[in-house]
């Protein structure tokens, strides 16, 4: 589980859904949640929140992409790799935080990911949970 902390910069609500922008260091993370500031009072601008997502939901790329629907793209340098038979864990150090990703070992080899190489972590907005 990746847990980052940041401050809410905006909350856009429509019906029972909210799109919440959170500033984490110099990065911006966007989450969509089935909550509104009425149902979850902690969803207010400037509030400090935890941004939670699973390692298994983090996609890795060798650079940032424009032609992709994933809005959360956090770039950094690979800090550690733990290689397993089918699955491997890759830790990407961004400017303020490290993000773990679990990908297949095949993908690790195909992308030729090494400790010290550049990598971008991509996370879908609907995979991110927010917590007080």
């Amino acid at each position, binding site marked *: *589980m990746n847990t980052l902390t940041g401050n809410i910069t905006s909350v856009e609500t429509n019906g029972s859904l909210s799109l919440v922008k959170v500033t984490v260091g110099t990065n911006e993370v966007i*989450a*969509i*949640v*089935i*909550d509104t500031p009425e149902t*979850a009072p*902690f969803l207010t601008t400037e509030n400090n929140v935890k941004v*939670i997502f*699973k*390692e*298994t939901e983090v996609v890795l790329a060798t650079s940032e992409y424009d032609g992709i629907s994933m809005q959360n793209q956090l770039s950094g340098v690979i800090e550690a790799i*733990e*290689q*397993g*038979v*089918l*699955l*491997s*864990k890759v830790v990407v150090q961004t400017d303020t935080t490290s993000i*773990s990703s*679990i990908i297949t070992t095949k993908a690790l080899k195909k992308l030729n990911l090494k400790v010290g190489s550049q990598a971008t972590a991509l996370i879908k907005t*609907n*995979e*991110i*949970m*927010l*917590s*007080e």
Partner: protein
Amino acid sequence: MIAISVQKQLLSGGGEMSLDVSLNFKRGSFTAVKGKSGVGKTSLLRMIAGLMTPDKGKIKVFNETWFNSWSKENLSIQKRSLGYVFQDYALFPNMSVFENLKFALHKTDDKQIVNDILEVMELGSLQHVKPDKLSGGQKQRVALARALVRKPEILLLDEPLAALDVEIRQKLQDYIVDAHKEFDLTTVMVTHDTGEILRMADKLVIIENGKVIKQGSPSTILAQRSISGKFQFTGEVISIETEDVVNIVSVLVGNELIKVVVDQNETSTLSIGDKVLVASKAFNPIIQKI
């Protein structure tokens, strides 16, 4: 409706404490009472049972006054229609299961009820056995059966399953819920176990320092609303297996076994038997009609 409003000065571990509790229980309801030790949970049950006299207050059970400090009414324990089960089974060691149950009856009561209850509690084959030959779970089943032979209106349970292991506890939970429904009981149970509360009770009361601080639906009170994932369950860790760079944690949620892939760093703080919150986003699960 059972209406209780009692006050009593108590001596607890931290000195003197004033218990001041007002509660209503609907007929047929199953209420769990939770709180730290020494906050007055057991004293509350003892006052309902007539084993402890409140300093002030009223206890009214379906239009019958059991206690009223102003009109000086105090119904004797024998006349209060209730069953009481403690954590230690308090069975008579020199009597068989059948005799333990029969002893709880009044002379005028129909003896047939003993056989009926032995059947409901599946104790028929053990009826001639003495308590020292029974397992903890069986003893507690006998204690529960004995509490039911007088067909009480109220069943009071004081951490009845705390001394039993997980598997037996779940079976006993089913027996208690079945008995609660079968005999149309109004049940009040003191417990610390979150899973037990969610599985058995329809109302939860939380007591702190002799006062009721929260009451309402167990899932609302116990659910952690501070995390935005809408797919939330509480369960118990059954096993932790290592696969490659991850661990697979099996969690018993209600009667269903689910599996969660967890990073190995996180499982270092988890042990088998731990109560856990399992949360996911509402966007992930799929629904299929069966």
